[in-house]
């Protein structure tokens, strides 16, 4: 399902966030993304000789996750009360080649839609972890917005407790560019029109740190 990022959605989203933040102050434990330690990789394919597989890499993933503070005291398979909002600036994704970055930013309509966003809507613990540090294996559902188009996606996510206040989430999911209104780019190189594959894979490692005022 595709939903265009309309002003209404934006206002509604802001109101929802405000309501969530009020709730979080009361009950939930909030973890914020620090500026370092996270990494997102987007892997794709092309017919360009020597670049049959290409990658974009980003080093900042902003946002937060809020969880029921009791979720890991006696974890059981099933729904976990959690919500998250994840933000990645499109320009922060780098290929290592400035012209390719420029193509990617145009492809993803960066000027109009400077951020990739993900909103977690459901989180299901698949089985109890073997230790309190994890890893916790979840099946998640959420809404991914790329180039201004939002789709519902499902993906497995792993969570590890790095220390008392720090969590690391990792996972990956394939997506099709055309599902987000993005035409696979076909720039010219070496006299050839390069064709890029429609399917790409998003791989992430996201670090979050417990906000001081919600620390136990």
């Amino acid at each position, binding site marked *: 399902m595709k939903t265009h990022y309309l002003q209404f959605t934006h206002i509604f989203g802001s109101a929802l966030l405000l309501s969530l933040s009020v709730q979080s102050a009361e009950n939930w434990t909030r973890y914020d993304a*620090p*500026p370092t330690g996270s990494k997102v990789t987007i892997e794709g394919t092309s017919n360009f000789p020597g670049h049959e597989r290409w990658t974009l890499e980003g080093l900042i993933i902003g946002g937060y996750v809020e969880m029921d503070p009791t979720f890991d005291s006696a974890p059981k398979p099933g729904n976990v009360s959690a919500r998250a909002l994840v933000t990645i600036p499109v320009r*922060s994704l780098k290929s290592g080649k400035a012209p390719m970055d420029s193509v990617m930013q145009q492809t993803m309509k960066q000027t109009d839609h400077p951020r990739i966003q993900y909103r977690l809507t459901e989180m299901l613990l698949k089985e109890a972890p073997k230790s309190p540090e994890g890893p916790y294996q979840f099946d998640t559902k959420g809404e991914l917005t790329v180039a201004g188009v939002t789709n519902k996606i499902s993906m497995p996510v792993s969570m590890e407790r790095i220390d008392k206040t720090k969590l690391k989430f990792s996972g990956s999911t394939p997506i099709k560019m055309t599902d987000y209104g993005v035409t696979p780019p076909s720039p*010219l190189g070496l*006299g*050839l029109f*390069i064709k890029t594959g429609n399917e790409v894979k998003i791989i992430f490692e996201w670090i979050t740190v417990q906000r001081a005022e919600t620390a136990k």
Partner: protein
Amino acid sequence: MKHRMKKEENITEQNRRDFLKGGSLATLMMLMGGVSIRAEDKPKTEEGGTNFKTTGAPLNCAVIGCGTWGRELLKELARLPNAPVLAICDNYEPFLRRAKDSAPKAETFTDYLKLLEKKEVQGVFVATPSHLHKDIVIAALQAGKHVYCEAPMATTVEDARAIAQAAQAAVKLHFQPGQQLRSDPQRHALLGFVRTGSLGRTALARAQWHKKQSWRRTSSNPERERELNWRLLKATSPGLIGEIGLHLLDMASWFINAQPVSVTGCGTIIQWNDGRDVPDTIQAVVEYPGGIKWSYDCTLVNSFDAEYEMYYGSDAALMIRDNKAWMFKEVDAPQLGWEIYARKDSFYKERGIALDANATKLKAIGKKATEAAGPEEESPLHYALEAFISNSTATGAAVEDFASLYDVSDAKALATYLAGIKKTMTPCAGYKEGFEAAVTAIKANESILKGQKVTFQKEWFEIG
């Protein structure tokens, strides 16, 4: 005089190198023999199947110092689609007038501090005489401008260190010294060959720059003539090794992958005894760890064989001229594998194997290696300026992106993020490489002037 590689021939007298470039180079190389090595091709047009621009965001530029080299920068900037020049500055009116040829819309300034007040200017090129760089570069960084500082960064270690410290502190800005070869794709391809051991064990290296010219500028105004000829006096000039040799000396340190241990030099005024005290002919031997020595000679007295570099290893020798390189393999050298794709050339006394670094890519698109065996299309300066524009805008964008998610006053986190971003940027020299090259050249010049060996001290290379 600023850099003096390929572009300089356009602005100076005809010499042997021009003759070589004019069509005989390939023939000469065929006679001498070697293995041709190229960087991979880059896209040749800006638009592709889905109509993309591969040029990045524009950077509003200004050039401070509009002498011969400053005007060369302006000509090259005029060729870039995303480097509008908004302002130019020089304290000599005729230079400003000439500079307007390449930047007709630029506002003119005689005071660089006034130029730096112009908020629209995002990036500044400093092409004044080398001994005047420090104050201008530091003021530009403090004004929030990205800075391209011509090489050498300075003529004293203290000035070079002050510039490096200012660049280091300006976390949100891109600083790039004018070591343009560090941006040349061909050099990066060669670096890969050298660093992966294709030459075997490095034995020695050498380079030369020969050009018969006075290095003197003339003016009807004696005071102006004195200013113009800052390169001819020890008090203001880093000498031939600093103004010319620095680039190849930097290449030697880069290829050998080490800091020099010592330098022994000498210099003499042979031909141009016109009141100058800077030698017109110099020789220097720079020693690297493991006993590897790089020798260099540079003269304004004779033009024979122009400019080239050689690296000698136990398996092969590498010769670099202009933007091309050749590999001369020893008979007992192991097969590297890629030779089977390479062009076979006849040599003066040997027979060798020509190689294109992108042979497999060319094959994949149905081209023969020989069809693409020419030099890179653009000069190292062009690539360096492209890198500066691209990296400056990328740095600015990265700071904005960071600020959109986090507290930008967290300088340590911002610096960590930008350090990661820098790894993805277009290759270029940074303040560290600029500082180290300047220190090496300044100390080499001291050795040349004294005729004594100078042993490099570790603390000389510390930025602090």
